[in-house]
């Protein structure tokens, strides 16, 4: 999945968090070093 690409993740605390997306991508074979930024915002 996303071969050769670097991935930026934008999550939200009260919705889908960055960590959840990371876990999914890793399970789909994305290498950890290709996730270059994972941001989970707290909007309040």
């Amino acid at each position: 999945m996303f071969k050769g690409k670097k991935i930026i993740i934008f999550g939200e605390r009260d919705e889908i968090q960055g960590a959840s997306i990371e876990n999914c991508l890793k399970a789909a074979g994305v290498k950890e070093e290709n996730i270059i930024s994972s941001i989970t915002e707290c909007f309040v």
Partner: protein
Amino acid sequence: MSLEYQNAVKDLAFKYGPENLVVMLGFLDMDLIEIQAITMTDGDPSGVGSLSGVALRLKVYHILEPEIKSQIPQDVYQEQIGLMAITAGPEKIAKISELLQQLRTTR
């Protein structure tokens, strides 16, 4: 999209090359998804941030899109995203998919 994040995305695009980057969103708010996706595709529509007039044309995806879901082992997807997929509901998921697909293919 906040000015700080615009700076961060711009820096990453400069470092890796925009064609090598993919963005994955986890917000459920339609307006927020749209603004964020447009900012990283066409540039900041408000004309305030560092991405104003900078069309990075990044490929923006959402974790709820069927084409993403299909690539993730279903047990993991269910455990990590299942509840939020119900929260969003099929109609919103379809809307998100349509919006982002259009941005990815027409730009």
